[in-house]
């Protein structure tokens, strides 16, 4: 089945710094989701991004489907950005069930 790999596994930032998180996938996909899991465990939808670039405030994401990767950019990081960031790809032939990467743990220090 499809493999989803995220890097880096851990990241520590000073408040105000920028970062890039990467998601690689082993097969063609029709779309991709980025989530932020906050310290209380809630999964928050960040982007639904099959291809191209989207921006939402300090966050933006780019998916290059032909090269099988997606990037999540966090600019001017804040302590509230801390948590785990997951990317996930749906399997269309299996009801779009999501295959998740292992996540990137982000800690933003003040």
């Amino acid at each position: 089945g499809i493999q989803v790999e995220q890097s880096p596994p851990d990241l520590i930032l000073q408040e105000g710094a920028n970062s890039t998180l990467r998601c690689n996938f082993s097969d063609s996909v029709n779309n991709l989701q980025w989530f932020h899991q906050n310290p209380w465990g809630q999964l928050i939808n960040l982007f639904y991004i099959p291809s191209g670039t989207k921006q939402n405030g300090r966050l933006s994401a780019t998916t290059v489907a032909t090269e099988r990767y997606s990037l999540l950019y966090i600019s001017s990081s804040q302590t509230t950005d801390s948590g785990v960031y997951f990317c996930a790809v749906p399997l269309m032939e299996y009801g779009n069930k999501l295959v998740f990467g292992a996540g990137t743990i982000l800690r933003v220090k003040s």
Partner: protein
Amino acid sequence: GAGVSQSPSNKVTEKGKDVELRCDPISGHTALYWYRQRLGQGLEFLIYFQGNSAPDKSGLPSDRFSAERTGESVSTLTIQRTQQEDSAVYLCASRLPRHRGRSVEQFFGPGTRLTVL
């Protein structure tokens, strides 16, 4: 509108007991999924419901796990004879039905944290 809701938020049980977890999807979302997240890990798929079609149970880890859904509303996930390795957060997600050009974005509930002593 209301998001996906789950209950209880926390459940502590003794090994060998049965537990039932509940999920209320977003209104109009015909597709419903259950996932499990063990401590420090990503999410793994358990089961998928789409309308009145037969569910995809391919992710259920053992026959102690079962789930039901009545029509396009509430779903319950039941774990019989719980074991310590069942301790995890159980998350439910829902989405709109597939249609040409429509997003299949999934939205998650807050999860139920299950602890088996």
